[in-house]
């Protein structure tokens, strides 16, 4: 039996109807289920040798009930009929009030139009083939420079089958396949150690490894490590900063994106709550969250609540246009779901999350943007970051940085962190480039760690605090 069919065999329509009905019989006015069967492969290559090879399967169900805007969630992987129904009953009872005495659940199986065509399932490609690509990337990184002391390469793929159903009649299955290569190179010189990272991924099968140039990927990580080992500490204080495209978009993700998720907005916790239609950014800023991009790392046909995904306009010419809303957020805010309910796996209740979030291109050439800066920092490669959506305070790391002096990129600098407040920083974006692209990351929040793309063209911030060392 094919993987996807096993879920449907264990959880056929009558059984799923019974689970949903059990929740509502004991309490609440809405119920949904999320069944997941996921097969993953992890391979670690250190110093050119495979050190770890692990495959595994998770298979469980999450059951949720609502009573107005109160939500109760439970999950289990003891999938015996008695246990699943007992968990459903516990969810209903925890909601505490039987709202619907007469109800019927009529599940209608919806066939999806698949926008994310996968050529090869992870299990169709041998582990040896996957390792072959990892070794190619390793060789390229290692041979980039004699000062590369260590290269760690991690490979990860998974094949996830989900069945999502709810008491409003949704009954839908989907298959998500993702593949990612993560390369960490370490350069050592005169006792100084610095590392460089590059982690391309996609909503594709292992054919992705053929599509990208794994050798170039290895070189890219090595190049950062080699550049940074010679770098001086970054200067400290407020200055103009140009942030390069692709993973540079992590600034929008952290500074603004999280605060536009219903989980922050619905209870008024976000600094952007109640600001729809207002000018929140400079006019050159437009941004979207788009889970419909074919085969992108953060894409899916439907969200983890069974709603079709969308391209959501977040900001248009500086005006706040929309939020990312899940089902519960939709109830709390009185606005429709945007198909943004996501979760790491069945052990997490879904909540509003980003998918592929990026700033749209502007008019300027990246060179023109750098030329406009007399003195500042050029953040070429960004690391991760984090934010407190309640205050808008964010921080993120610059993994590869350079000084800009008299409109030209001068010497490399390391150890810079950028901090600020999201709602202030988007009012300081002065120029937006025409070179938009996206990079891949894992985003951690209430519903776990999920694949998400960040992205932007090159942008210029008038001023931001750079955390570096004082001379």
């Amino acid at each position, binding site marked *: 039996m094919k993987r996807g069919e096993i879920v449907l065999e264990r959880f056929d329509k009558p059984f799923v109807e019974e689970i949903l009905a059990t929740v509502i019989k004991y309490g609440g006015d809405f119920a949904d289920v999320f069944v997941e069967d996921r097969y993953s492969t992890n391979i670690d290559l250190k110093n050119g040798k*495979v050190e770890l090879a692990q495959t595994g399967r998770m298979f469980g169900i999450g059951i949720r009930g609502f009573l107005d805007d109160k939500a109760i969630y439970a*999950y289990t992987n003891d999938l015996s009929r008695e246990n699943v129904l007992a968990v459903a009953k516990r969810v209903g009872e925890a909601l505490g009030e039987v709202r619907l005495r007469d109800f019927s659940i009529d599940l209608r199986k919806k066939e999806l139009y698949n926008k994310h065509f996968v050529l090869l399932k992870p299990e169709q490609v041998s582990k040896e083939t996957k390792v072959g690509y990892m070794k190619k990337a390793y060789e390229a990184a290692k041979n980039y420079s004699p000062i590369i002391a260590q290269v760690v390469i991690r490979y990860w793929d998974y094949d996830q089958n989900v069945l999502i159903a709810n008491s409003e009649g949704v009954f839908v299955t989907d298959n998500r396949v993702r593949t990612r290569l993560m390369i960490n190179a370490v350069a050592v010189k005169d006792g100084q150690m610095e590392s460089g990272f590059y982690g391309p991924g996609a909503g594709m099968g292992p054919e992705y490894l053929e599509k990208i140039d794994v050798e170039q990927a290895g070189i890219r990580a090595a190049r950062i490590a080699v550049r940074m080992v010679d770098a001086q500490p970054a200067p400290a204080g407020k200055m103009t900063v140009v942030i390069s495209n692709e993973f540079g978009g992590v600034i929008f993700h952290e500074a603004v994106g999280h605060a536009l998720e219903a989980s922050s907005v619905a209870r008024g916790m976000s600094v952007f709550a109640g600001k729809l239609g207002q000018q929140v950014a400079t006019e050159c800023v437009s941004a979207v969250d788009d889970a419909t991009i074919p085969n992108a790392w953060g894409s899916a046909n439907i969200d983890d609540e069974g709603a079709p995904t969308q391209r959501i306009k977040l900001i248009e010419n500086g005006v706040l246009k929309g939020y990312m809303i899940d089902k519960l957020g939709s109830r709390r805010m009185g606005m429709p779901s945007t198909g943004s309910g996501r979760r790491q796996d069945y052990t997490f209740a879904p909540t509003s999350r980003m998918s592929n979030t990026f700033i749209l291109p502007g008019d300027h050439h990246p060179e023109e943007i750098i030329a406009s800066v007399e003195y500042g920092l050029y953040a070429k490669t960004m690391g991760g970051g984090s934010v407190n959506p309640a205050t*808008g305070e964010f*921080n993120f790391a610059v993994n590869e940085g350079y000084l800009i002096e008299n409109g030209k990129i001068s010497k490399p600098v390391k150890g810079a962190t950028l901090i600020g407040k999201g709602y202030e920083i988007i009012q300081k974006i002065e120029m937006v480039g025409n070179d938009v692209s996206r990079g891949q990351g894992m985003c951690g929040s209430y519903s776990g760690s999920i694949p998400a793309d960040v992205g932007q063209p090159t942008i210029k911030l008038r001023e931001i605090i750079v955390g570096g060392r*004082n001379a």
Partner: protein
Amino acid sequence: MTLEQFKDKIFSLAKANGVEAQIGYSQNKNFQVRYQNGEMDQYTDAGKFKITIQILKDGKIGMSYTERLDEPEKVFEDALSNISIIDSEDVEYFYDGKGEYLNIEPYDGSFERLSVKERISYAERAHEEIRKSADIINDMAVYGQQMNEMRLSNTLGLDVSYVSGGGFMYAMAVAKDLSPRSAVEFAIGRSPDALDPVHVGSKARDESLALVGSKSVKSGKYGVILRNDVFSDILGMLISMISAENAQKNLSPLKGKIGEKIGSDVLNIKDLPYHPLSISSSPFDTQGVPTKEKKIIENGVFKTFLHNLKTAKKDGVEPTGNAMGTGIQTINLYVEPGSKSFNELLETLSDGLVIIEIEGMHSGANPISGNFSLGAKAFRVEGGKITHGVEQITISGNFLEMLKNIEELGSDLRAFMGIINPSVLISSLDIAGNN
């Protein structure tokens, strides 16, 4: 199929194939409730199990895991076939369970006996406490408890089990100001009486109010106190540096430095299998090796790396009982307290900053080089007293240089996530703020 049958099947498959096998079984129970502004925002009550299989053949280990008991053959095949791509020269081992295990009290499940009403009252009471001030505009209160039953057995005779667990609370208060001011407080405990929602709520509230009117400070070098919760976060870097695996792979700046002075004279750090404040204690590590107390830094001198079976053999030393999955981890990283109270530390500092929150450890701190640059919140200390809140600054430095600059340790021990430590006073740290 029962777990016992599953295990027997795997072990007999191992025998038939002439390999060794190890099974890890964990059964987890997890309850969590989150309130935002007094409204229940999230409620999870759940449990699951996971079985991990390791197959050992010619010194190589292949791994697989499953959440189904009905396919031992597939799980065995997967693990066995994963061995075929391993080409590391490292030699892997299983442990036979013949060592001496410490008698560490397992978790007594005391939180499991609380009713749902009692559980959510922790979050509700924290919320009520925070809202005693009219200047609070937003708040969050979280209560959770978990229990994990772990069993590990292998074909060499190892068969050990342990139950761990406890409860935790988290509260965030946001005070009204031109820019909203947030503060958080948390608590963990092995029994319900160790959690005080009024204390957690009031600490978060009072700190957010104290931050009203925060401003940045001039960039420069400052004497600082890293408050215990902040020092705990930053100590995560040390755990990566003292892993023998990282040292053997050239990923630790402490490589080759055993016996060298790496910290200030007053610094003493141990790894403890058990501490009463912690909910992370265990009599054995994830390879089944007994855990034991060991000195990591004594009077500033680096004493030992932490080992699993593989790294110990490679270095020709005894394993230290610190295997954690495929990596190496402390059980309870314990920093010995000093004699001064927090207030006495303030007086000693006299002029500087108390760092009360850092952000960005996962991105702004590099355990390979030891360099860090992190967003921070602080209080300005002048004349030995806190004068005002400080926002929008970063702290930067090198972790190992910082250990050398520790002047004093406080007496205010606190435990979180397997790290138990006091506040520390550092003579000088780079601060970026206003020009």
